[in-house]
Each structure stands twice: as C-alpha cells, then as structure tokens.
C-alpha cells in the first residue's frame, strides 16, 4: 500500500512506529532473544532470586510476586495482545470489509438484511457472549478468546466499509466502469474494495488499540487466557494484590499497554492524514 | 485603479486601497508555493476592479491576503495593503476584527458552504448585525428584513425562519450578499460569486452586486475566471497569471486592445455565441506553470506564441505602451500584442514552427481547410 508515500513522518511518529516494530518482532522471535529469561521460571522455588525483586542487571524490570522475570513476561505477554488484536483486525477487515463494501455497493435488500444482522450483533453485550462461549467450551485458551473477540469485531468494520463504499460508489469512475460494461463482481473487487482499503487500514490501527485495551480489561477481570500464560492484562491483575509492597510489576505492563495503544493511534492518525492528502489531490 | 507605479502620487482622499508588492507564499512539504508574487494596484472609493485569472493564478489568494483570511502557520504575506490610511497587513487580529464586516466584507464562491447549515438564516443575519453594531434584537430583525428586501428576496419574514438548505443556490447567495452588506462596508470582495450558479441566476446576482455597489458608493473587487463577467461590470481589470499581474487597465481599454499575449489568448480560447457553430478555438497550449519552481523570465513564456529568447531569461516589467496608448493601460511583455515587435516575434515563431504559435495561427474564416493544429501537442 502506497498510503505512506508522499507525506513525511514526524520524529515522534517514527518513534511510535519503531516501538510497534520492536513489540511485534519481540513477540514473534521471543524464543530467540539471547539472555531473555523463561517467563514462567519461578526462581525462588529453586533458591534463585526472590519475589518482588527491584529492577537490577539480572532482572531489568525486576520480578513479580511469583519471582518470575517481568521483562520476559512482557515480551511473551505481547503475544497474547497481538494475537487477539491481529485476529480481530484480520477477521474484521476481511469479513466486515467485504460485507460492508458489498452492501454499500449493491444496496437494496442485501444491504437491509446484512445491516440488520450487524445491528443485532452490535446490540448484543460482548462480555456475555464471551462468558457463554467460554463456559460452553469449558476452556479459555488464546484461540477461543481471539475467535470471539474477532467475531465481535466484524460489525464495526462492516459499518466503516459500508459508509466508504457508499461514497466510492457515487464516484464517476464507478459509473464509468458500468458504462464500459464491466461486470458488477469485477467492479466490486477492482473499483470499490481497493478504494475502501485506506480507510479500513486507518480504522484497523485504531481498532487494534481498542482491542488490546479490551483484552487487558478482560484479563484484569480474569476472563482472558488462563494463567500462567502471561498477558499484559493478567500481569496487572496479578500484581494488584501486592501493590502496597511493590508497584513495578503493575507499572511495567501498564506502560507497555499505554505506549502500544498510543503508538497505534498516532501511526493510525498519520496514515489517515496522508490518505486525506491523497484524496484531496485526487 | 491607477497605474501601480504611481500609487503614492494619487489623490489620497479618493484612494481606498493601495496594495504594494504583495507576496503570499504557502510552505508545504514539497516546497514553497509562491501563490502571489509581487502585486501592486490601487482602488478608489466607489470603483469596481475585476481580477481575472485561471485556477492557480493567485487571484483568490490575493483577495484573501488583503482580507487577512489566509489562516495557517505555513502562510507568509509580505508587502503592504493600505486600506483607508492603515496597512491592514500589519494590524493585529483584534484590530482586523473591527475591519471585517464593518469596513471590508467578502462574498464567497460557494453559497452552500458559506452559511452554517444548522442555524436559521435569520439568526445568521441578525447575529452579525448585533455583534458588529450592538443593536437590539428587534432592531436587528427589522434591519434584516429590509436587507432581504433590498437583495430582492421575496417574503423576507418567512425566509428568515428558513434553514439554508431550504433555499435555492441563488437565494443563498443573496443571503450571503445581505450579510456582507449588513454593516455597510466601504469595500466588498466578491470571490467568484457566481461560479457555482446557473447562468440566469448569475445574471441576477451580478446585477444585484452592481446595483448595490452603485447605490452605496462602495468599492468592489470582483474576482473571476470569466472575462465575460468583468467585461460589462467593472471599471478596471487586472489580469493575473502565475501570481503576477500581466496586464492592468481600464476595462474598456483592455477589451479594445489586449496587449499581453496571455490576455489575448484567454479571450481567443473562449467559445462565443456570436461565432458560427464549429468555429475552431485558439486553445492555449500546455498547462499553467509550477508555482513552487516558476519558470525564469516571463511565466507565460513556455506557452506564449510571441515568445523570444529574452522572455525566457528576463522578467518583463509592468509598463505602459508608447504615446497614443491609454496611459492607464499597463502590461508586462517585451513583445506585446499589436506592436511591431510582437508581430515580428509571432511571424518568426510561426516560421520556426514553434507549436504554440502554429496552434493559434488559424486561417481566418474558412474552417474547412483541414488539417488544423489542435493545440493538443504532447504535454506529459
């Protein structure tokens, strides 16, 4: 996507983009990072360190109340945040983007039906659905959480894509394609959807931030992945009990969460701006 | 308007606005867009000035620079614009606040976007009156009704209760004019006031502006891309190209003999109802110049049928013609239209096969003698 070309990133936006890259690479290649500790290794059980250690050269961010290395848990915890948010973004933009673009273009009964379904899902309390599914399946692993959050992400993407497709459909190049005799299906894939993508991309970045926060909130409530798997949210939750003794185990994951969400918003804004420049030039 | 080089010698009592070497630049990532590149003119009280140019000529930016309406940290304006004895370019924004509406007002191109869609027309007119003149609500309402009457809006009481979208484009432009006139400004800028309107409505609006201008002895600057609009309705005309004035003259003198090749080309490329159907148009070849990196020499030189080597290196100054010419008719050209130098330059360019000269060297009368040059030389 050429959306970034032609507009300059500010220094600050570069830092934000850099942070996101570090997080993603860290999460993917966590096992290969030299010197990174095992996130579930409880050192004090083996006489190797203590609980709630302050930051030191050995544990750069200290240890938590189970004597686990916080840095390692943050790097591995990013996996949960990223998998959940990526699933949501991919499911949302693929299914939501497609349905939205489709109904925005063809309108009529298809539009009414799909948008009615979307409104029903939007009206349904997500937490209740999550609890129901988790209870029915009897497990709470990453896949289940990601799938449910992903399913709930489809409606907002559908709405965004539909609004964009409505606007794109009114452009004269769509009329021109019809006048040429292009089939409707081809128009949808060649003319409508590509022109919805920049808007969807910008929305996806902001939405990813929302999902990361949502996962954090779910984990804090104990509804996300089961311990001992690290996630930023359940790290904060676990640190809560010892907050009076040691604040670091709560601060580090919170900072990671804040930086990541802020960076996503900042980079998303940048993309949207550069896209605005592009459409103004068009 | 008088010749720009004599702005300080004109009677200060009559001069309302004197602009000297105004330059406006917009900084964008790609570079500095030099939208207005040194414009000088003066306008007397009660006179009308037409500013004509195509998109990118700087005509709208010029008007907005004088009104101080170019907002943004990336805009720089230099030069002076002396309005009623004060340089408006050096006024603070709170001092400008007293000028806007009271002394200078503006009517914009798009009557749809220049009214707030969520506020009833009446409140938009009366609020303006009350904030500027400090009159009571009842008095403002009375004035609003008489203003609407004046701009010939039928049933003004009912219209004041309407929302902008309930009115037609012409009606909305009348409302905008009423708002602009509300505080009796001494100078009215009309920036393409009829471009968004149909031709019959354009006619009504231009008549309305002309009548108000005369009745109020108000000075008016009419910015337009349409030579037809300035022709019958202005005292003086500036023709702008690439941020500079290329020709400035009393309107009648300008149309009697256009001296700058660009003005001539603009007029000749217009289809006219007085011409027979299928009359070949003398199109201007090429495209307007890049304002970030304008051509050296005369900006029109790459498209000019009269161009000489000198034009490509040296910027021609704005001067008047020799004896026998209108002393108020100035143009910026080394080989002006209608001069021996011009005729010679054109003949030379035609015989050299310069595309822009060949393209306008049309056989007169007989349109059948194909193939004619199209003015469609390659421009990518």
């Amino acid at each position, binding site marked *: 996507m050429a959306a970034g070309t032609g507009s300059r990133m500010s220094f600050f936006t570069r830092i934000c983009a850099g942070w996101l890259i570090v997080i993603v690479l860290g999460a993917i290649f966590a096992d290969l990072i030299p010197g990174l500790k095992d996130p579930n290794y409880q050192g004090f059980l083996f006489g190797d360190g203590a609980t709630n250690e302050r930051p030191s050269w050995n544990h750069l961010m200290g240890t938590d109340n189970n004597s686990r290395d916080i840095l390692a848990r943050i790097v591995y915890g990013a996996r949960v945040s990223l998998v959940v948010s990526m699933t949501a973004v991919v499911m949302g933009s693929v299914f939501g983007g497609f349905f939205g673009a489709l109904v925005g273009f063809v309108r009529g009964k298809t539009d009414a039906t799909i948008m009615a379904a979307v409104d029903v899902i939007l009206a349904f309390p997500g937490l209740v659905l999550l609890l129901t599914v988790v209870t029915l399946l009897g497990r709470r692993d990453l896949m289940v959480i990601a799938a449910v959050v992903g399913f709930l992400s489809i409606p907002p993407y559908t709405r965004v894509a539909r609004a964009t497709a409505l606007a794109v459909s009114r452009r004269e*190049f769509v009329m*021109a394609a019809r*006048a*040429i005799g292009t089939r409707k299906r081809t128009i949808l894939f060649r003319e409508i959807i590509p022109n919805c993508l920049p808007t969807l991309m910008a929305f996806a970045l902001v939405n990813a931030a929302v999902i990361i926060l949502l996962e954090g909130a779910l984990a804090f409530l104990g509804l996300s992945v089961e311990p001992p798997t690290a996630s930023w949210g359940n790290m904060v939750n676990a640190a809560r009990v010892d907050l009076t003794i040691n604040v670091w185990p709560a601060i580090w994951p919170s900072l990671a969460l804040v930086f990541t969400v802020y960076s996503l918003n900042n980079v998303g804004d940048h993309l949207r701006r550069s896209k605005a420049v592009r459409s103004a030039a068009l | 308007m008088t010749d720009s080089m004599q702005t300080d010698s004109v009677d200060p009592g009559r001069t309302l606005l004197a602009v000297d070497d105004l330059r406006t630049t917009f900084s964008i990532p790609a570079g500095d867009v030099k939208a207005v590149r040194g414009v000088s003119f003066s306008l007397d009280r009660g006179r009308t000035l037409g500013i004509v140019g195509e998109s990118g000529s700087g005509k709208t930016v010029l008007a907005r620079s004088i009104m101080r309406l170019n907002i943004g940290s990336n805009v720089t304006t230099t030069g002076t614009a002396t309005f009623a004895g004060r340089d408006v370019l050096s006024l603070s924004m709170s001092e400008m606040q007293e000028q806007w509406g009271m002394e200078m007002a503006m009517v914009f191109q798009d009557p749809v976007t220049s009214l707030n869609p969520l506020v009833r027309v009446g409140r938009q007119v009366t609020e303006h009156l009350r904030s500027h003149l400090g009159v009571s609500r009842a008095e403002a309402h009375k004035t609003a009704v008489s203003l609407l009457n004046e701009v010939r809006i039928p049933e003004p009481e009912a219209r004041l209760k309407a929302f902008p979208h309930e009115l037609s484009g012409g009606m909305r432009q009348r409302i905008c004019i009423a708002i602009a006139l509300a505080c009796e400004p001494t100078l009215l800028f009309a920036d393409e006031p009829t471009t968004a309107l149909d*031709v019959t409505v354009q006619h009504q609006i231009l008549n309305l502006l002309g009548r108000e201008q005369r009745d109020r002895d108000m000075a008016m600057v009419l910015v337009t891309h349409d030579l037809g609009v300035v022709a019958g309705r202005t005292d003086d005309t500036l023709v702008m190209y690439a941020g500079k004035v290329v020709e400035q003259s009393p309107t009648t003198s300008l149309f009697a003999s256009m001296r700058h090749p660009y003005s001539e*080309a603009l007029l000749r490329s217009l289809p*006219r109802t007085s011409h027979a159907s299928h009359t070949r*148009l003398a199109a201007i070849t090429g495209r307007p110049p890049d304002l970030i990196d304008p051509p050296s020499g005369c900006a029109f030189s790459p498209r000019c049928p009269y161009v000489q080597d000198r034009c490509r290196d040296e910027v021609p100054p704005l001067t008047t013609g020799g004896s026998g010419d209108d002393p108020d008719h100035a143009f910026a050209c080394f080989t002006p239209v209608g001069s021996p130098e011009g005729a010679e330059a054109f003949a030379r360019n035609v015989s050299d096969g310069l595309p822009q000269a060949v393209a306008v060297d049309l056989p007169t009368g007989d349109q059948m003698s194909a193939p004619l040059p199209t003015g469609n030389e*390659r421009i*990518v």
Partner: protein
Amino acid sequence: MAGSGKAHLRPDDEVLIRVEDLVVEFPVGRGRTVKAVSGISFDIAKGETLGLVGESGCGKSTTGRALIQLPSPTSGSVRHGLVELTDLSDEAMRRRRTDIQMIFQDPISSLNPRRTVGDIVAEPLRVWGPHDKAEQKALVDRMLDAVGIDPDAARDKHPHEFSGGQCQRISIARSLVVDPELLICDEPVSALDVSVQAQILNLLEDLKAEYGLTLVFIAHDLAVVKNVSDRVAVMYLGKLCEVAGPDELYANAAHPYTALLLGSIPEPDPEVVVDEGLVDSGELPSPIDPPSGCRFRTRCPHATDRCAAEEPQMREVAEGHHVACHHPLVAVAE
C-alpha cells in the same frame, strides 16, 4: 414549454438513436417522486452532435444516463437502430455497452485513483477483448497518443499525477478504445479552466471526424454547446423547449426560456450593454411538484391562462426549428 410532441423527430432511416416519451422519476421518500425527465422525445442522426443544454435540475444529465440505461428510465422508449434498449435484460444491455460510451464532468473523479493510467484505459479491453496483452497495449498506446498523451510517460502513472485536462483526455481514451458509435459527453469541460476547455473541445471535434463518432454533448454553457453542436435541444425542468440547428437557434430563439438563457450569457465585450431589465423572477420550481401546463410559465414574461391549462406541443417554426410554446417569439410558418 413543457414541450411534448414529436413533430421534430426525423424519419427512421436517418437516425441512430430515437428516444420517445422518456420519463425518469426518482422516489424521494414519503411517496413523493422527483420528476427529473417528464416525457421527452428526440433523435440523434448518425454522425451529428446533439447539444443538450439547460440549467441545473433540467434533467439533461439524467437524460444522458437514461440513454445507456444507467439507470433505466421509468417509462418510454430508447431505440438504438432496431433494438429497443429498455426491453433488454441487464446482461443483454451490458453486452451492448461498447456501442454507447460516456465521459463525465469531473475528470479526476471519473478515474479510479488506485489504478495506473495504462490499466484504466485497458479496462474496456479486459472486458471485451482482445485479451492478448500485447494487442491490448498496442491499442491503449494508440488511443493515448490520439488524445495527446504520451503513452510511454503516462502508462505507469496514477491519475492524481495529471491535471484535470489530462485526466479528461485519459477518460476520452478509455471510452474510445472500444470503438463506440455514440459518445455521450456529460459536461466534459465545465470543471476545466478556459484555456484547457478549448483544447478538449478541439480534441473532441478532431476525434469525432477521425472516428466517425456521433456525440451527445450535455452542457450548461450555451457558448460551448453552440461551438460543438449540429443540433441543439434546450431543456427546462424535465421538458424539451426548443430544438434547432445552432446558428438558427442562437439567431432566432423562439422559446422565451431560450431567449432568457441567451440574454444571461456574460459576453466578454464591454460594448455589449448588460441587460439589467431582463425579466426573470428567477426561482426554479420544484421538480417534485412542477407547474401545470407549460413548466416555464412561472418565470415567463409572456405566460397566459392557456399556458397553465394546456401543455404546448412541439411545432415547426422554421425548417428544422421546433419549439414547444404557445407564444413563440418568432412568427409561426403555418
């Protein structure tokens, strides 16, 4: 005007397209409809340029789109040769689209910003063939060259790298690459600067001669329409007022609306006295609830009771000059 009637239609063997009693209405909610086009008839002879002129809201663009069935008219007939286009299924109509092509007002908006120029001009070929890539490229290059765009420089660029005039050229290239019979030009120059407008008008004239095109030229600018047309039809509020050859129409306007339009044109000549007395109370009536009888009567200085009661029919006032008015401004040759 409300002009109905078919006195101005020509014999079948001369015409390429014949439109009869065309009606296009759009629902706007609460059971109301906008009567965009209300029963107009006209024909287009092979090789001629028909100018459709009128102000915004007169239905001229809707008429143009009805010719290519986008959308299909509410009622009426559009006959192309022997084929009744309104009877065709969507798929059958799609297969005929190469015969009738269209270019639009906004040259930049009519090109997909995310595709390259080469790709855009080749699109019709991808639908209709030839499917051979090299053949497609050769055709695209030839067409771009014909409209004055250097194919080698332009092929891989995106539309936003071009000016409005160049985009309109690219648009023209796309519509002509399938070799259509009829090209509908919907306000093709109204978004362009004067100097560029002349280039495009000249180009259309040249291409018309070179490719033997028939044109429908829709515009609000009477001077532009006069310049390109062989026959001009004036529309007002969904009806046809007057049909005539351009020189005849502009010299002897018979309909009061045509006269009003002509009188409103700002002439670039200070010697022409601006007619401030031109009678026009100005407001276009609503197309949801148009006036009875002649639709122009609410603005017409010559209107009488008859104009409210009875819709005027097209009649000939001079050879090839038809007007739908009870009180035409020229003597009627009975």
